[in-house]
Protein backbone atom coordinates (compact mmCIF):
# COMPACT_ATOMS: atom_id res chain seq x y z
CA UNK A 1 0.00 0.00 0.00
CA UNK A 2 1.30 3.40 -0.88
CA UNK A 3 -0.47 5.45 1.76
CA UNK A 4 2.15 7.49 3.60
CA UNK A 5 2.28 7.38 7.37
CA UNK A 6 1.13 10.96 7.85
CA UNK A 7 -1.90 10.43 5.68
CA UNK A 8 -2.81 7.29 7.54
CA UNK A 9 -2.72 9.14 10.82
CA UNK A 10 -4.77 11.94 9.38
CA UNK A 11 -7.34 9.40 8.22
CA UNK A 12 -7.36 7.94 11.68
CA UNK A 13 -7.99 11.42 13.06
CA UNK A 14 -10.92 11.89 10.72
CA UNK A 15 -12.43 8.63 11.84
CA UNK A 16 -11.85 9.35 15.50
CA UNK A 17 -13.47 12.73 15.10
CA UNK A 18 -16.45 11.11 13.38
CA UNK A 19 -17.00 8.73 16.29
CA UNK A 20 -16.62 11.40 18.90
CA UNK A 21 -18.93 13.91 17.27
CA UNK A 22 -21.69 11.35 17.12
CA UNK A 23 -21.08 10.02 20.62
CA UNK A 24 -21.02 13.47 22.15
CA UNK A 25 -24.34 14.20 20.48
CA UNK A 26 -22.66 16.96 18.50
CA UNK A 27 -24.76 16.21 15.46
CA UNK A 28 -24.53 19.67 13.96
CA UNK A 29 -20.79 19.38 13.41
CA UNK A 30 -21.07 16.00 11.77
CA UNK A 31 -22.04 16.98 8.18
CA UNK A 32 -18.84 19.02 7.88
CA UNK A 33 -16.89 15.75 7.83
CA UNK A 34 -18.36 15.07 4.39
CA UNK A 35 -17.89 16.76 1.06
CA UNK A 36 -20.71 18.79 -0.48
CA UNK A 37 -21.49 16.08 -3.02
CA UNK A 38 -21.03 13.19 -0.64
CA UNK A 39 -22.96 9.96 -0.57
CA UNK A 40 -23.75 8.52 2.86
CA UNK A 41 -25.74 5.39 3.35
CA UNK A 42 -26.63 3.03 6.17
CA UNK A 43 -27.76 -0.23 4.64
CA UNK A 44 -28.55 -3.72 5.94
CA UNK A 45 -26.03 -6.29 4.82
CA UNK A 46 -28.85 -8.32 3.32
CA UNK A 47 -29.78 -5.57 0.88
CA UNK A 48 -26.17 -4.71 0.13
CA UNK A 49 -25.23 -8.29 -0.59
CA UNK A 50 -28.24 -8.90 -2.83
CA UNK A 51 -27.83 -5.66 -4.72
CA UNK A 52 -31.10 -4.25 -3.43
CA UNK A 53 -30.85 -0.47 -3.33
CA UNK A 54 -33.03 0.28 -0.33
CA UNK A 55 -31.11 1.83 2.54
CA UNK A 56 -32.12 2.57 6.10
CA UNK A 57 -30.58 6.01 5.74
CA UNK A 58 -29.74 7.48 2.36
CA UNK A 59 -28.17 10.90 1.92
CA UNK A 60 -27.07 12.06 -1.48
CA UNK A 61 -25.42 15.32 -0.46
CA UNK A 62 -24.20 17.24 2.55
CA UNK A 63 -27.50 19.06 2.37
CA UNK A 64 -29.37 15.85 2.96
CA UNK A 65 -27.11 15.14 5.92
CA UNK A 66 -28.05 18.52 7.30
CA UNK A 67 -31.73 17.88 6.64
CA UNK A 68 -31.45 14.68 8.60
CA UNK A 69 -29.71 16.43 11.45
CA UNK A 70 -32.47 19.01 11.56
CA UNK A 71 -35.14 16.31 11.45
CA UNK A 72 -33.52 14.36 14.26
CA UNK A 73 -33.04 17.43 16.40
CA UNK A 74 -36.18 19.40 15.70
CA UNK A 75 -38.96 17.11 14.54
CA UNK A 76 -38.38 13.57 15.74
CA UNK A 77 -39.73 12.21 19.04
CA UNK A 78 -37.59 9.66 20.84
CA UNK A 79 -36.29 8.67 24.23
CA UNK A 80 -32.92 10.13 25.17
CA UNK A 81 -30.06 7.73 24.64
CA UNK A 82 -26.31 7.49 24.48
CA UNK A 83 -24.42 5.97 21.58
CA UNK A 84 -20.82 4.82 21.69
CA UNK A 85 -18.76 3.93 18.63
CA UNK A 86 -15.78 1.64 18.84
CA UNK A 87 -14.07 1.27 15.53
CA UNK A 88 -11.66 -1.52 14.69
CA UNK A 89 -8.49 -1.46 12.64
CA UNK A 90 -8.67 0.39 9.32
CA UNK A 91 -7.85 -1.58 6.23
CA UNK A 92 -6.40 0.59 3.49
CA UNK A 93 -7.65 -0.47 0.12
CA UNK A 94 -5.81 1.99 -2.08
CA UNK A 95 -5.05 5.59 -2.86
CA UNK A 96 -5.57 6.81 -6.39
CA UNK A 97 -6.27 10.19 -7.94
CA UNK A 98 -6.46 11.81 -4.54
CA UNK A 99 -9.02 9.35 -3.25
CA UNK A 100 -8.20 6.98 -0.45
CA UNK A 101 -10.37 3.92 -0.14
CA UNK A 102 -10.55 2.16 3.19
CA UNK A 103 -12.73 -0.17 5.17
CA UNK A 104 -13.09 -0.79 8.86
CA UNK A 105 -15.26 -2.78 11.22
CA UNK A 106 -17.21 -1.02 13.92
CA UNK A 107 -19.43 -1.68 16.89
CA UNK A 108 -21.94 0.82 18.19
CA UNK A 109 -23.33 0.45 21.69
CA UNK A 110 -26.57 2.00 22.80
CA UNK A 111 -27.58 2.94 26.32
CA UNK A 112 -31.22 3.70 27.02
CA UNK A 113 -32.40 5.21 30.28
CA UNK A 114 -32.76 2.59 33.01
CA UNK A 115 -31.22 -0.12 30.86
CA UNK A 116 -27.84 -1.71 30.47
CA UNK A 117 -25.69 -0.75 27.52
CA UNK A 118 -26.19 -3.12 24.64
CA UNK A 119 -24.70 -4.01 21.30
CA UNK A 120 -26.73 -1.86 19.00
CA UNK A 121 -25.22 -2.08 15.57
CA UNK A 122 -22.13 -3.76 14.19
CA UNK A 123 -20.86 -3.72 10.64
CA UNK A 124 -18.29 -2.12 8.46
CA UNK A 125 -17.58 1.23 6.92
CA UNK A 126 -16.68 1.40 3.25
CA UNK A 127 -15.05 4.77 2.74
CA UNK A 128 -13.75 7.09 0.08
CA UNK A 129 -11.81 9.96 1.55
CA UNK A 130 -10.56 13.07 -0.22
CA UNK A 131 -8.78 16.27 0.67
CA UNK A 132 -11.25 19.09 0.38
CA UNK A 133 -10.96 22.62 1.67
CA UNK A 134 -7.79 21.98 3.58
CA UNK A 135 -8.82 18.84 5.40
CA UNK A 136 -9.82 15.26 4.80
CA UNK A 137 -13.48 14.54 4.28
CA UNK A 138 -15.63 11.59 3.37
CA UNK A 139 -16.74 11.67 -0.21
CA UNK A 140 -18.51 8.43 0.37
CA UNK A 141 -19.24 6.45 3.47
CA UNK A 142 -21.35 3.31 3.28
CA UNK A 143 -22.21 1.61 6.57
CA UNK A 144 -23.13 -1.97 5.84
CA UNK A 145 -24.56 -3.38 9.03
CA UNK A 146 -24.82 -6.96 10.21
CA UNK A 147 -27.43 -6.07 12.82
CA UNK A 148 -30.35 -6.36 10.46
CA UNK A 149 -32.92 -6.75 13.18
CA UNK A 150 -32.65 -3.24 14.51
CA UNK A 151 -33.37 -2.83 18.23
CA UNK A 152 -36.37 -0.54 17.87
CA UNK A 153 -35.09 2.59 16.15
CA UNK A 154 -31.99 3.94 14.54
CA UNK A 155 -32.34 7.56 15.50
CA UNK A 156 -28.80 8.82 15.05
CA UNK A 157 -26.43 8.15 12.16
CA UNK A 158 -24.09 5.20 12.52
Amino acid at each position, binding site marked *: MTVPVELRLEIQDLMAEYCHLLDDGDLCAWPALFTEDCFYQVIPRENHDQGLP*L*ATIRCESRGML*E*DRVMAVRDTA*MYEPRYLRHVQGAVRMLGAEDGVVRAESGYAVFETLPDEHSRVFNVGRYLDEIVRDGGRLRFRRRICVFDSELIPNTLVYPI
Partner: protein
Amino acid sequence: MTGSAGNLLDRRWPEEGVHRVPYWAYTDEAVFRREMERVFCGRGWAYVGLACEIPEPGDFRQSAIGDRPVVMTRDLEGGINVVMNRCAHRGVKFCRARRGNARRFVCPYHQWAYDLKGNLKAVPFARGVKRQGGMPEDFRNEDHGLERLRVTERNGVVFATFSDEVEPFEEYLGPMLAWFDRVFDGRGLTVLGYSRQLIPSNWKLMFENIKDPYHASLLHVFLVTFGLFRADNPSKVRLDATGRHAVLVSSKGEQRKSDATKDMENLREDFKLKDPRLLDPVREYREGTVAMLTLWPNLIVQQQSNTLAMRHLIPRSADAFELAWTFFGYDTDDAAMTTRRLRQANLMGPAGFVSVDDSEVMKLSQDGVRPSPDAAGVLEMGGREADDQDHIVTESTIRGFYRHYRDVMGF
Protein backbone atom coordinates in the same frame (compact mmCIF):
# COMPACT_ATOMS: atom_id res chain seq x y z
CA MET B 1 -58.78 -24.55 22.41
CA THR B 2 -55.83 -26.55 23.72
CA GLY B 3 -55.15 -26.96 27.36
CA SER B 4 -52.07 -24.81 27.25
CA ALA B 5 -53.73 -21.49 26.75
CA GLY B 6 -57.15 -22.29 28.01
CA ASN B 7 -57.02 -22.32 31.74
CA LEU B 8 -55.56 -19.01 32.74
CA LEU B 9 -57.82 -16.54 31.14
CA ASP B 10 -60.28 -15.34 33.69
CA ARG B 11 -59.49 -11.92 32.33
CA ARG B 12 -62.51 -9.70 31.94
CA TRP B 13 -62.85 -6.81 29.52
CA PRO B 14 -63.94 -3.49 31.03
CA GLU B 15 -67.69 -3.09 31.09
CA GLU B 16 -67.63 0.08 29.05
CA GLY B 17 -66.83 -1.93 25.92
CA VAL B 18 -64.49 -1.31 23.00
CA HIS B 19 -63.78 2.27 23.96
CA ARG B 20 -61.71 0.85 26.77
CA VAL B 21 -58.71 -1.42 26.25
CA PRO B 22 -57.44 -3.13 29.38
CA TYR B 23 -53.68 -3.01 29.76
CA TRP B 24 -53.40 -6.70 30.55
CA ALA B 25 -54.17 -7.29 26.88
CA TYR B 26 -50.70 -5.98 26.05
CA THR B 27 -48.67 -7.77 28.68
CA ASP B 28 -50.15 -11.12 29.64
CA GLU B 29 -48.25 -14.02 28.08
CA ALA B 30 -51.31 -16.27 28.34
CA VAL B 31 -53.25 -13.78 26.27
CA PHE B 32 -50.37 -13.81 23.82
CA ARG B 33 -50.42 -17.56 23.46
CA ARG B 34 -54.11 -17.54 22.78
CA GLU B 35 -53.58 -14.83 20.18
CA MET B 36 -51.10 -17.02 18.36
CA GLU B 37 -53.74 -19.71 18.05
CA ARG B 38 -56.86 -17.71 17.42
CA VAL B 39 -55.75 -14.50 15.80
CA PHE B 40 -52.76 -15.49 13.72
CA CYS B 41 -53.46 -19.13 13.06
CA GLY B 42 -57.23 -18.98 13.19
CA ARG B 43 -59.86 -17.81 10.72
CA GLY B 44 -58.03 -15.27 8.64
CA TRP B 45 -55.74 -14.81 5.68
CA ALA B 46 -52.26 -13.98 6.89
CA TYR B 47 -49.71 -12.18 4.79
CA VAL B 48 -46.71 -14.27 3.78
CA GLY B 49 -44.84 -12.41 1.04
CA LEU B 50 -44.82 -11.14 -2.50
CA ALA B 51 -45.01 -13.46 -5.45
CA CYS B 52 -42.19 -11.54 -7.10
CA GLU B 53 -39.86 -12.68 -4.36
CA ILE B 54 -40.05 -16.22 -5.70
CA PRO B 55 -40.34 -15.78 -9.45
CA GLU B 56 -38.74 -19.02 -10.61
CA PRO B 57 -39.71 -22.64 -9.98
CA GLY B 58 -37.80 -23.82 -6.92
CA ASP B 59 -37.53 -20.35 -5.44
CA PHE B 60 -38.33 -20.16 -1.77
CA ARG B 61 -38.34 -17.62 0.98
CA GLN B 62 -38.72 -17.91 4.73
CA SER B 63 -41.55 -16.07 6.38
CA ALA B 64 -43.69 -16.32 9.50
CA ILE B 65 -47.30 -16.27 10.58
CA GLY B 66 -47.56 -15.31 14.20
CA ASP B 67 -44.73 -17.07 15.96
CA ARG B 68 -44.72 -19.94 13.46
CA PRO B 69 -42.00 -20.07 10.83
CA VAL B 70 -43.18 -20.91 7.33
CA VAL B 71 -41.62 -21.25 3.92
CA MET B 72 -43.17 -19.82 0.79
CA THR B 73 -42.20 -21.81 -2.29
CA ARG B 74 -42.72 -21.77 -6.03
CA ASP B 75 -43.26 -25.33 -7.15
CA LEU B 76 -42.17 -26.79 -10.45
CA GLU B 77 -45.59 -26.15 -11.95
CA GLY B 78 -45.31 -22.50 -10.97
CA GLY B 79 -47.75 -22.69 -8.10
CA ILE B 80 -47.14 -20.99 -4.79
CA ASN B 81 -47.10 -23.05 -1.63
CA VAL B 82 -46.75 -22.22 2.02
CA VAL B 83 -45.56 -24.91 4.42
CA MET B 84 -44.56 -24.92 8.06
CA ASN B 85 -40.81 -24.82 8.52
CA ARG B 86 -40.92 -27.84 10.81
CA CYS B 87 -39.81 -31.28 9.76
CA ALA B 88 -42.52 -33.92 10.11
CA HIS B 89 -40.02 -36.34 11.61
CA ARG B 90 -38.77 -34.65 14.78
CA GLY B 91 -39.57 -31.01 14.34
CA VAL B 92 -36.39 -29.48 12.95
CA LYS B 93 -36.71 -26.04 11.39
CA PHE B 94 -35.17 -27.50 8.30
CA CYS B 95 -34.98 -24.43 6.05
CA ARG B 96 -32.08 -22.26 7.12
CA ALA B 97 -31.40 -19.93 4.22
CA ARG B 98 -33.55 -16.85 4.23
CA ARG B 99 -34.20 -17.36 0.54
CA GLY B 100 -32.89 -19.53 -2.24
CA ASN B 101 -33.71 -21.98 -4.96
CA ALA B 102 -34.05 -25.71 -4.48
CA ARG B 103 -35.64 -28.71 -6.11
CA ARG B 104 -36.65 -30.05 -2.76
CA PHE B 105 -36.15 -29.51 0.94
CA VAL B 106 -33.89 -31.89 2.75
CA CYS B 107 -33.99 -31.76 6.52
CA PRO B 108 -30.42 -31.72 7.79
CA TYR B 109 -31.00 -34.13 10.66
CA HIS B 110 -31.95 -37.34 8.86
CA GLN B 111 -32.38 -36.04 5.37
CA TRP B 112 -36.05 -36.61 5.05
CA ALA B 113 -36.78 -34.99 1.71
CA TYR B 114 -39.87 -33.00 0.79
CA ASP B 115 -40.96 -31.61 -2.51
CA LEU B 116 -41.76 -27.93 -2.90
CA LYS B 117 -45.37 -28.61 -1.96
CA GLY B 118 -44.37 -30.23 1.29
CA ASN B 119 -44.95 -33.86 0.33
CA LEU B 120 -42.57 -36.29 1.94
CA LYS B 121 -40.70 -37.87 -0.94
CA ALA B 122 -37.89 -39.83 0.66
CA VAL B 123 -36.88 -41.21 4.04
CA PRO B 124 -33.30 -42.44 4.01
CA PHE B 125 -32.93 -46.05 5.09
CA ALA B 126 -36.70 -46.38 5.17
CA ARG B 127 -36.22 -49.99 4.12
CA GLY B 128 -33.19 -50.44 6.38
CA VAL B 129 -29.61 -51.20 5.58
CA LYS B 130 -28.53 -54.72 4.73
CA ARG B 131 -32.09 -55.79 5.56
CA GLN B 132 -31.89 -54.43 9.05
CA GLY B 133 -33.92 -51.63 10.60
CA GLY B 134 -35.96 -49.15 8.67
CA MET B 135 -39.46 -47.83 9.07
CA PRO B 136 -42.43 -50.04 9.98
CA GLU B 137 -44.29 -51.66 7.11
CA ASP B 138 -47.31 -49.47 7.62
CA PHE B 139 -45.41 -46.20 7.57
CA ARG B 140 -46.70 -44.16 4.66
CA ASN B 141 -44.93 -41.06 3.41
CA GLU B 142 -48.33 -39.54 2.63
CA ASP B 143 -49.06 -39.29 6.35
CA HIS B 144 -45.90 -37.42 7.09
CA GLY B 145 -45.70 -34.44 4.84
CA LEU B 146 -45.01 -30.94 6.06
CA GLU B 147 -47.96 -29.05 7.47
CA ARG B 148 -49.39 -27.21 4.46
CA LEU B 149 -51.40 -24.06 4.53
CA ARG B 150 -54.13 -22.93 2.18
CA VAL B 151 -52.73 -20.24 -0.08
CA THR B 152 -54.19 -17.41 -2.07
CA GLU B 153 -52.50 -14.85 -4.27
CA ARG B 154 -54.00 -11.59 -5.42
CA ASN B 155 -52.16 -9.31 -7.79
CA GLY B 156 -48.79 -10.44 -6.59
CA VAL B 157 -49.43 -10.64 -2.86
CA VAL B 158 -49.47 -14.01 -1.12
CA PHE B 159 -51.64 -14.89 1.84
CA ALA B 160 -52.08 -18.17 3.65
CA THR B 161 -54.26 -19.64 6.35
CA PHE B 162 -54.33 -22.55 8.76
CA SER B 163 -58.10 -22.47 8.62
CA ASP B 164 -60.36 -24.65 6.54
CA GLU B 165 -63.30 -22.40 7.15
CA VAL B 166 -62.18 -18.94 6.25
CA GLU B 167 -64.04 -17.39 3.32
CA PRO B 168 -62.25 -16.70 0.02
CA PHE B 169 -59.80 -13.81 0.20
CA GLU B 170 -61.86 -11.36 -1.81
CA GLU B 171 -64.85 -11.93 0.40
CA TYR B 172 -62.62 -11.79 3.46
CA LEU B 173 -61.46 -8.32 2.53
CA GLY B 174 -64.94 -7.07 1.83
CA PRO B 175 -64.96 -3.35 1.11
CA MET B 176 -61.21 -3.21 1.68
CA LEU B 177 -60.65 -5.10 -1.55
CA ALA B 178 -60.91 -1.95 -3.60
CA TRP B 179 -58.31 -0.27 -1.43
CA PHE B 180 -56.10 -3.30 -1.77
CA ASP B 181 -56.47 -3.21 -5.53
CA ARG B 182 -55.69 0.49 -5.56
CA VAL B 183 -52.03 -0.33 -4.88
CA PHE B 184 -51.99 -3.86 -6.22
CA ASP B 185 -53.54 -3.14 -9.55
CA GLY B 186 -52.02 -5.99 -11.46
CA ARG B 187 -48.79 -4.31 -12.42
CA GLY B 188 -45.66 -6.27 -11.66
CA LEU B 189 -43.97 -5.51 -8.36
CA THR B 190 -40.27 -4.99 -7.75
CA VAL B 191 -38.71 -5.39 -4.34
CA LEU B 192 -36.43 -2.45 -3.52
CA GLY B 193 -35.19 -3.88 -0.26
CA TYR B 194 -35.91 -4.98 3.26
CA SER B 195 -35.77 -3.43 6.66
CA ARG B 196 -36.39 -5.11 9.98
CA GLN B 197 -36.80 -3.89 13.50
CA LEU B 198 -37.73 -5.43 16.81
CA ILE B 199 -40.15 -3.13 18.54
CA PRO B 200 -40.31 -3.63 22.30
CA SER B 201 -44.07 -3.46 22.51
CA ASN B 202 -47.12 -5.57 22.01
CA TRP B 203 -48.01 -6.11 18.34
CA LYS B 204 -51.50 -4.66 18.76
CA LEU B 205 -50.01 -1.26 19.46
CA MET B 206 -48.73 -1.25 15.90
CA PHE B 207 -52.22 -1.78 14.54
CA GLU B 208 -53.60 0.83 16.89
CA ASN B 209 -50.95 3.22 15.68
CA ILE B 210 -51.67 2.84 12.00
CA LYS B 211 -55.42 2.72 12.47
CA ASP B 212 -55.15 5.92 14.52
CA PRO B 213 -55.32 8.99 12.28
CA TYR B 214 -55.73 11.20 15.32
CA HIS B 215 -52.07 11.00 16.28
CA ALA B 216 -50.55 11.70 12.89
CA SER B 217 -51.07 15.43 12.82
CA LEU B 218 -49.89 15.75 16.42
CA LEU B 219 -47.02 13.36 16.86
CA HIS B 220 -45.38 13.64 13.47
CA VAL B 221 -43.89 17.09 13.28
CA PHE B 222 -42.11 16.23 10.08
CA LEU B 223 -45.31 15.10 8.36
CA VAL B 224 -47.23 18.09 9.56
CA THR B 225 -44.53 20.58 8.73
CA PHE B 226 -44.42 19.42 5.14
CA GLY B 227 -48.17 19.03 4.90
CA LEU B 228 -47.96 15.33 4.17
CA PHE B 229 -50.60 14.68 6.77
CA ARG B 230 -52.74 17.12 8.66
CA ALA B 231 -55.96 17.02 10.52
CA ASP B 232 -57.39 19.60 8.16
CA ASN B 233 -56.52 17.73 5.00
CA PRO B 234 -59.38 15.89 3.29
CA SER B 235 -59.36 12.48 4.92
CA LYS B 236 -61.48 9.52 5.85
CA VAL B 237 -61.46 6.15 7.55
CA ARG B 238 -63.28 3.04 6.37
CA LEU B 239 -63.81 -0.32 8.04
CA ASP B 240 -65.13 -3.65 6.91
CA ALA B 241 -68.23 -5.08 8.52
CA THR B 242 -66.34 -6.92 11.26
CA GLY B 243 -63.99 -4.08 12.08
CA ARG B 244 -60.89 -6.21 11.60
CA HIS B 245 -59.69 -4.39 8.48
CA ALA B 246 -59.54 -0.67 7.92
CA VAL B 247 -58.11 1.99 5.70
CA LEU B 248 -57.12 5.56 6.39
CA VAL B 249 -56.93 7.84 3.37
CA SER B 250 -55.78 11.40 3.21
CA SER B 251 -54.50 14.00 0.75
CA LYS B 252 -51.45 16.19 1.03
CA GLY B 253 -52.07 19.76 2.11
CA GLU B 254 -49.77 22.70 2.21
CA GLN B 255 -47.01 23.77 4.52
CA ARG B 256 -48.69 26.67 6.26
CA LYS B 257 -50.73 27.48 9.30
CA SER B 258 -54.46 27.53 8.95
CA ASP B 259 -57.39 28.11 11.18
CA ALA B 260 -57.67 24.48 11.97
CA THR B 261 -54.04 24.08 13.00
CA LYS B 262 -54.31 25.99 16.21
CA ASP B 263 -54.08 22.74 18.17
CA MET B 264 -51.04 21.58 16.25
CA GLU B 265 -48.36 23.15 18.32
CA ASN B 266 -45.47 21.50 16.67
CA LEU B 267 -46.03 23.00 13.27
CA ARG B 268 -42.78 24.53 12.09
CA GLU B 269 -43.39 26.93 9.25
CA ASP B 270 -39.75 27.91 9.00
CA PHE B 271 -38.48 24.42 8.33
CA LYS B 272 -36.98 24.14 4.82
CA LEU B 273 -35.08 21.28 3.27
CA LYS B 274 -31.52 22.04 2.23
CA ASP B 275 -31.73 19.34 -0.38
CA PRO B 276 -35.34 19.34 -1.60
CA ARG B 277 -34.75 16.18 -3.62
CA LEU B 278 -35.41 14.36 -0.36
CA LEU B 279 -39.11 15.07 -0.69
CA ASP B 280 -40.34 15.49 -4.21
CA PRO B 281 -43.57 13.53 -4.31
CA VAL B 282 -45.44 12.73 -7.47
CA ARG B 283 -49.09 11.82 -7.36
CA GLU B 284 -49.71 8.18 -8.27
CA TYR B 285 -53.30 7.35 -7.35
CA ARG B 286 -56.60 8.97 -8.06
CA GLU B 287 -57.77 9.17 -4.45
CA GLY B 288 -55.47 10.16 -1.63
CA THR B 289 -51.79 10.88 -1.38
CA VAL B 290 -51.54 8.56 1.55
CA ALA B 291 -53.47 5.40 2.28
CA MET B 292 -52.70 3.06 5.13
CA LEU B 293 -54.49 -0.25 4.91
CA THR B 294 -54.53 -2.56 7.92
CA LEU B 295 -55.46 -6.17 7.26
CA TRP B 296 -56.19 -8.67 9.97
CA PRO B 297 -54.18 -10.38 11.31
CA ASN B 298 -50.67 -9.31 10.33
CA LEU B 299 -50.37 -6.78 7.51
CA ILE B 300 -50.14 -3.09 6.93
CA VAL B 301 -49.99 -1.86 3.34
CA GLN B 302 -48.31 1.51 3.43
CA GLN B 303 -48.66 4.06 0.66
CA GLN B 304 -47.29 7.39 1.80
CA SER B 305 -46.53 9.64 -1.16
CA ASN B 306 -44.23 7.46 -3.25
CA THR B 307 -43.08 5.03 -0.60
CA LEU B 308 -44.78 1.70 -0.87
CA ALA B 309 -44.17 -0.93 1.73
CA MET B 310 -45.61 -4.08 3.17
CA ARG B 311 -45.27 -3.98 6.93
CA HIS B 312 -45.42 -7.51 8.20
CA LEU B 313 -46.10 -7.98 11.90
CA ILE B 314 -44.35 -10.94 13.47
CA PRO B 315 -45.10 -11.15 17.18
CA ARG B 316 -42.33 -12.52 19.37
CA SER B 317 -43.89 -12.26 22.82
CA ALA B 318 -46.46 -10.13 24.57
CA ASP B 319 -43.71 -7.55 24.96
CA ALA B 320 -42.13 -7.44 21.52
CA PHE B 321 -42.78 -7.91 17.85
CA GLU B 322 -40.73 -7.85 14.73
CA LEU B 323 -41.76 -5.39 12.08
CA ALA B 324 -40.54 -6.63 8.71
CA TRP B 325 -40.67 -4.02 5.95
CA THR B 326 -40.63 -4.87 2.28
CA PHE B 327 -40.23 -1.74 0.20
CA PHE B 328 -41.35 -2.13 -3.36
CA GLY B 329 -42.16 -0.35 -6.59
CA TYR B 330 -43.77 -1.26 -9.90
CA ASP B 331 -42.05 -2.78 -12.85
CA THR B 332 -43.27 0.24 -14.78
CA ASP B 333 -41.19 2.63 -12.66
CA ASP B 334 -38.52 4.58 -14.47
CA ALA B 335 -35.16 5.30 -12.83
CA ALA B 336 -36.34 8.67 -11.55
CA MET B 337 -39.32 7.10 -9.81
CA THR B 338 -37.14 4.43 -8.24
CA THR B 339 -34.75 7.07 -6.94
CA ARG B 340 -37.72 9.03 -5.63
CA ARG B 341 -38.96 6.01 -3.73
CA LEU B 342 -35.51 5.37 -2.30
CA ARG B 343 -35.17 8.96 -1.16
CA GLN B 344 -38.61 9.06 0.41
CA ALA B 345 -37.72 5.85 2.22
CA ASN B 346 -35.82 8.19 4.54
CA LEU B 347 -39.20 8.89 6.10
CA MET B 348 -40.01 5.26 6.82
CA GLY B 349 -38.43 2.27 8.50
CA PRO B 350 -36.35 2.12 11.67
CA ALA B 351 -34.61 5.44 10.89
CA GLY B 352 -37.55 7.13 9.22
CA PHE B 353 -38.31 10.75 9.98
CA VAL B 354 -41.90 9.71 10.54
CA SER B 355 -41.82 6.13 11.71
CA VAL B 356 -39.19 6.67 14.37
CA ASP B 357 -41.84 8.63 16.24
CA ASP B 358 -44.23 5.71 16.08
CA SER B 359 -41.74 3.07 17.14
CA GLU B 360 -40.62 5.18 20.04
CA VAL B 361 -44.15 5.94 21.14
CA MET B 362 -45.01 2.25 21.06
CA LYS B 363 -42.12 1.51 23.39
CA LEU B 364 -43.31 4.29 25.68
CA SER B 365 -46.80 2.83 25.59
CA GLN B 366 -45.56 -0.59 26.58
CA ASP B 367 -43.45 0.91 29.36
CA GLY B 368 -46.49 2.83 30.53
CA VAL B 369 -48.99 0.00 30.58
CA ARG B 370 -46.71 -2.79 31.85
CA PRO B 371 -46.97 -2.08 35.56
CA SER B 372 -50.70 -1.32 35.43
CA PRO B 373 -52.47 -4.39 34.01
CA ASP B 374 -55.75 -3.42 35.62
CA ALA B 375 -55.92 0.07 34.17
CA ALA B 376 -57.32 0.69 30.68
CA GLY B 377 -56.90 2.98 27.71
CA VAL B 378 -59.66 5.41 26.78
CA LEU B 379 -60.70 5.46 23.11
CA GLU B 380 -63.45 7.98 22.74
CA MET B 381 -62.19 10.26 20.02
CA GLY B 382 -64.82 10.46 17.33
CA GLY B 383 -67.42 8.84 19.56
CA ARG B 384 -67.74 5.39 21.03
CA GLU B 385 -68.80 3.48 17.92
CA ALA B 386 -66.74 1.84 15.23
CA ASP B 387 -68.07 3.39 12.08
CA ASP B 388 -66.81 4.97 8.88
CA GLN B 389 -65.93 8.62 9.30
CA ASP B 390 -65.03 11.36 6.83
CA HIS B 391 -62.31 12.94 8.87
CA ILE B 392 -59.43 11.77 10.92
CA VAL B 393 -60.31 13.15 14.32
CA THR B 394 -61.32 9.72 15.45
CA GLU B 395 -60.30 6.43 17.00
CA SER B 396 -63.13 4.62 15.31
CA THR B 397 -61.02 2.05 13.51
CA ILE B 398 -59.23 1.06 16.71
CA ARG B 399 -62.58 0.40 18.31
CA GLY B 400 -63.48 -1.68 15.28
CA PHE B 401 -60.32 -3.70 15.66
CA TYR B 402 -61.08 -4.50 19.30
CA ARG B 403 -64.66 -5.38 18.52
CA HIS B 404 -63.42 -8.15 16.29
CA TYR B 405 -60.57 -9.02 18.63
CA ARG B 406 -62.93 -9.59 21.52
CA ASP B 407 -65.07 -11.87 19.37
CA VAL B 408 -62.14 -13.94 18.28
CA MET B 409 -60.47 -14.12 21.67
CA GLY B 410 -63.63 -14.76 23.63
CA PHE B 411 -63.21 -11.77 25.93
